[in-house]
């Protein structure tokens, strides 16, 4: 990488900010305008992040309600209140909304949008208009998918397997696919924006290996998005072409190959699981460093493993197709590569654990969500190996075992990390503290509810319970009821933050600029940040996560062996020359 950061465009050097030393030189981005217009047409990445936050949360509620309906339906082996048709539409709605409209955009579009410019010391993303466009594309795609859901629904599952989706399903396949297709462009726009911003707009002194790991994770994610999303977009178009115009691609009756669809679909959708987890891993690195008061152990390995995952992730799609009729030798290669791709993830977990060694750990809510993440992601990742291993996958694929696996990684992993991040940066985003005690309780409830919901699914999967089954053999009822009970507990754990975070907007303690004494650039500016982020272009002179002197002083403080050291509000390193 020859483009060194020193060459990056310094932003913020305009006269109206550089002359002022006070941080309150500009109103916060939240008070920069109160009209609806000032929100809906904003080009400020922070405001766009808020638009995303609100919309994505709404989709999370929709997906969650669908999940709840499915779980209630499964209390009894013959269903409780739905017909087959409704049941099939319900789990499809759940999958489509959660994957395409919640998990894929959640961390990048909300936290990434808000934080990437702040963390690299820039005033905004490289292309603010593209950023706004990405939001509206997302919104349009989402609304289209919801329209499809209320005007008949879709019953293909989120995977849209052919030839069911191209010929046999009489539901709103085309409209839903159009929704996912449009949302794909939103992802691509965000990905391009991140890549360009990270390449070109880093503050002076912010070299690649001084970047926070959150940035590395988003960089790797963006590469996957930009390379992978066009493939799924074309694939979905082909489905529509066959469905509407009967152009033979996938249906053997028109001379097509139904298994081809699975290759194309998973070529994107396997990397897509990393689109969901890599940003989550970025969050974990930030939070754990802050609350352990330690530099992240093996920084280069954690950063590099993100890239390794991005590359290897494109080579393992066939592990979703071990029983589809793909050749035995292809299966072996894909299995082998899947075992390899697990290593970079494991390396991250080990490095996070080692970060705590000789740290100074506090147990605030974000940190508890990090423990949640590690505990759940370990099991999720390791059960991936049961499915990467050929002989066991033959038995376990298409069963609840797979369902449990991916919920452990995506819900246990990605959503715990999302919560960790949301709590961690909540004071920065809103200028208010969330209520600490109840947030900690939430993390604990979430952890328990999660296991109760999904551990039984491993058991029933192994015993042969197929997924996407409306009616099921009575012997599985106990396990299904346990799972539904767990889902109820989880529902509480998801409802609580909605209530207390909204509550905190008005009644929460006012947050200081840096309530956690964190070192990132985003913490060196007021909470909530002014519209233009930085009064002066920050100049970076050291490595990230410069926490250890804090650990020292804080512990001496606690010991009472030395008078309290004034907490540095500004990392001197981050405020070098300029102006």
């Amino acid at each position, binding site marked *: 990488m020859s483009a060194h950061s020193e060459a990056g465009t310094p932003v913020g050097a305009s006269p109206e900010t550089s002359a002022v030393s006070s941080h309150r030189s500009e109103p916060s981005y939240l008070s920069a305008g109160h009209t609806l217009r000032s929100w809906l047409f904003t080009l400020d990445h922070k405001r766009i992040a808020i638009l995303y936050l609100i919309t994505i949360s709404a989709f999370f509620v929709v997906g969650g309600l669908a999940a709840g309906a499915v779980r209630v339906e499964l209390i009894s082996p013959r269903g409780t209140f739905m017909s087959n048709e409704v049941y099939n539409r319900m789990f499809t709605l759940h999958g489509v909304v959660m994957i395409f409209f919640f998990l894929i955009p959640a961390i990048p579009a909300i936290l990434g949008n808000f934080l990437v410019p702040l963390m690299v010391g820039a005033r905004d993303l490289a292309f603010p208009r593209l950023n706004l466009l990405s939001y509206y594309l997302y919104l349009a795609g989402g609304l289209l998918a919801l329209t499809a859901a209320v005007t008949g629904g879709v019953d293909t599952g989120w995977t849209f397997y052919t030839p069911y989706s191209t010929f046999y399903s009489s539901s709103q396949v085309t409209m839903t696919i159009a929704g996912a297709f449009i949302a794909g462009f939103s992802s691509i726009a965000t990905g391009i924006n991140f890549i360009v911003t990270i390449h070109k707009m880093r503050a002076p002194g912010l070299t690649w290996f001084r970047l926070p790991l959150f940035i590395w994770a988003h960089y790797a994610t963006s590469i996957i998005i930009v390379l992978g999303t066009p493939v799924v977009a074309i694939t979905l178009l082909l489905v529509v072409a066959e469905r509407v115009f009967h152009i033979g691609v996938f249906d053997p009756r028109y001379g097509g190959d*139904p298994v081809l669809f699975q290759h194309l679909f998973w070529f994107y959708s396997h990397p897509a699981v990393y689109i969901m987890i890599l940003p989550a891993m970025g969050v974990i690195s930030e939070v754990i460093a802050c609350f352990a008061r330690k530099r992240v152990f093996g920084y280069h390995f954690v950063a590099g493993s993100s890239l390794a995952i991005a590359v290897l992730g494109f080579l393992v799609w066939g592990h979703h197709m071990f029983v589809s009729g793909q050749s*035995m030798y292809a299966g072996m290669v894909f299995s082998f590569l899947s075992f390899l791709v697990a290593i970079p993830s494991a390396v991250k977990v080990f490095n996070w654990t080692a970060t705590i060694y*000789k740290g100074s750990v506090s147990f605030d809510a974000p940190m508890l969500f990090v423990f949640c993440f590690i505990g759940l992601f370990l099991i999720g990742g390791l059960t991936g190996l049961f499915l990467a291993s050929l002989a066991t996958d033959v038995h376990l694929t298409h069963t609840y075992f797979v369902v449990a696996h991916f919920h452990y990684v995506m819900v246990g992993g990605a959503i715990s990390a999302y919560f960790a991040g949301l709590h961690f940066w909540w004071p920065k985003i809103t200028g208010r503290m969330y209520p600490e005690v109840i947030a900690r309780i939430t993390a604990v409830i979430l952890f328990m509810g999660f296991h109760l919901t999904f551990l039984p699914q491993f058991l029933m999967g192994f015993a042969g319970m197929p997924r996407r089954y409306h009616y099921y053999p009575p012997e599985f009822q106990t396990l299904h009821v346990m799972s539904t009970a767990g889902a109820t507990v989880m529902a509480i754990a998801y409802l609580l933050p909605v209530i207390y975070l909204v509550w905190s907007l008005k009644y929460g303690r006012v947050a200081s600029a840096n309530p956690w004494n964190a070192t990132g650039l985003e913490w060196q500016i007021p909470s909530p940040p002014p519209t233009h982020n930085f009064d002066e272009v920050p100049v970076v002179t050291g490595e990230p996560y410069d926490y250890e002197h804090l650990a020292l002083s804080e512990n001496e403080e606690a010991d009472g062996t030395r008078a309290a050291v004034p907490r540095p509000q500004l990392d001197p390193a981050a405020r070098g020359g300029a102006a």
Partner: protein
Amino acid sequence: MNNPVFPEQASSFAVEVDAIYYLLWALTIGFSLLVMAVLIFLAYRYRRGARVDRSKPVHSDLRVELLWSVVPLIIGLCVFAWSAHLYARTRIPPDDAMEIYVIGKRWMWQMQHGNGVRENAELHIPVNRNIKLTMISQDVIHSFYVPAFRVKHDVVPGTYTRLWFRPTKTGRYRLYCSQYCGTQHSQMDGWVTVMEPEAFERWLEAEGNEANVKTVGLADAGKQLFDQMACGSCHGSNAQTGSIPAAQRGGSLNGLYGSLVKLKGGRQVKADEAYLRESIMRPNEKIVDGYWAIMPSYEGQLTEEQVLQLIAYIKTLGKSEPPRGGQ
């Protein structure tokens, strides 16, 4: 009622699949507990305010990184190798296997035994015999899954897929369609009944007589069809039939099944069920070397069942008549 946690081990693969499965659980639980224990221990020991030695913190160590990448990798690759080896055995059916044909359609399984006995949503098989299923779907993708045997394979339209196993315990086991196939996906299930060999023979006899019409063996039905569709006018073994000039006929089909066919362009393919099916339904996809592409396509004119009958008949041709010589 089946056990909802420990499924019956009723095939020759089951024990070994379970061994790998439990090994993986041991590794999963071991690793998770280890990491969580270390994490909690460190977090407690180095909790803020605790008076511990925090001097000389470490920030990176290549040896440690290598250690915790390579050790899990080696363990993982051992599991991979074992599992892949077992998988290879599950994919290659032995030659002596008893053949049964399976047709999946929404939302029902249809099985065809060699003697023509047909069952719906039920499969009767003898214990301790290798069973090979040749499967095809009439519509969408289904998946044939018998948890007690630890086997499963997708059943795809347009091409045959194969599955084999050796039941080791008599009993009744659940059969599922495990690939989502639409409205009544979860009702596309059934039972596999594994019987003692004598009981199975009796069952097959009785079932054959019970069906009020005299059951015709699959291959016999195929022969009737072969004549009816006049395949013989081009593929007759004594090639003087009809008015079609020799140059426009196809070759003899004797000994075709299982042989290596040389195609136009020099490629060779093995004449398995999938090849035979394609030759009948889409003859122009692969042209036999030395012949013209004049065979009509029978796609749409034959049901999957009829294709299976024709194939069963063509397969017998290799056995009863001398193998075809060089043409």
